[in-house]
């Protein structure tokens, strides 16, 4: 009895949520490994349940935080890019006939995405992208994340949102014409 849209959003949110958590973890551990930073793993650091990584000094923590936040943002951007490419090139309502025919001949018709699926996916990825940007802004205000990363992230997120808005405009125009 849960509204279809909420169920769909929950379904679409699981993958990006897990991906972002994994990106953050990988970002931290890769930074530790590549820059040889001393650290300890403390049990129950997150909600008395999950472990957390403790650095011996503030500068090591800031380096690891910056690289891992960047990794998280890159993953959020990649997810959004995939959805935007789907929206512009593989959108069921305005896919080019040539491309559609080629996909059918290659037995890849499943790549053609309907608006319902696409817009839920885009809403989730853009939400994650903007939440990541908000997190970066707060982190910059707390003097942890470098402002350059946050500025680039905000510009990228704004551009992606604009690209998505263009697709919605196109969709509205098509629905008016039909």
């Amino acid at each position, binding site marked *: *009895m*849960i*509204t279809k849209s*909420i*169920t769909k*959003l*929950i379904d679409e*949110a*699981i993958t*990006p*949520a897990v991906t*972002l*958590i994994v990106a*953050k*973890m990988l970002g*931290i551990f890769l930074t530790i490994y590549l820059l040889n930073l001393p650290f*300890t793993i*403390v049990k129950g*650091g*997150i909600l008395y349940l*999950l472990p*957390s*990584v*403790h*650095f*011996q*000094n*503030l500068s090591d*923590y800031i380096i*690891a*935080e910056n690289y*891992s*936040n960047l990794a*998280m943002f890159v993953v959020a951007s990649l997810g959004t890019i995939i959805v935007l490419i789907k929206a512009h090139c593989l959108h069921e309502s305005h896919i080019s006939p040539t491309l559609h025919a080629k996909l059918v001949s290659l037995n890849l018709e499943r790549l053609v995405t309907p608006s319902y699926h696409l817009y839920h996916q885009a809403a*989730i990825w853009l*939400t*994650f992208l903007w*939440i*990541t940007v908000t*997190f970066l802004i707060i982190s910059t205000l707390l*003097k942890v994340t470098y402002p350059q990363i946050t500025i680039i992230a905000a510009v990228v997120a704004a551009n992606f949102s604009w690209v998505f808005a263009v697709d919605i405009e196109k969709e509205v125009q098509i629905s008016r014409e039909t």
Partner: protein
Amino acid sequence: MRRHLLSFTLNFLGIALLITLIVAPIYFARNFAKVAGAKSESKYLLISQVDKFPNMTFIQEGDNYRISFSKVGPQQAYQQVFIVNNPTDSPQTYSLEVTSGASKVFFGENLDNQLTKISLPQSASVPLGLFSDVGDLEQNQQVQFKIIVKSE
């Protein structure tokens, strides 16, 4: 009616689950890495060096610090009994308030200028010493003090 109530509850729980899923990565990102030993709410760190001094004991009760020691001469001073560190990212002003005992507690190492108030820049440290004057004749000395913080 019952069906509507159930539907409302399920939708509410659905939205709560969705918000949790969206917020979880950010919460994780915020808490996964930390600096060891530093708590953001702590305005100062008091590092004890009491074990370097024989016959000196240190007891902490909340924000009250109590030191007991034996007097061996008419006038005596102990330096660097504690180190006070400012772990925050802004300058802090610390004042010492002796709540009981005749001995004096002071910032720094200068016996001629025993500071009871000091301003520390971010991440800086200052030693804390003890001084017992001639007039204080008790052999077993005890002093209890507090550190009062004032953000700049």
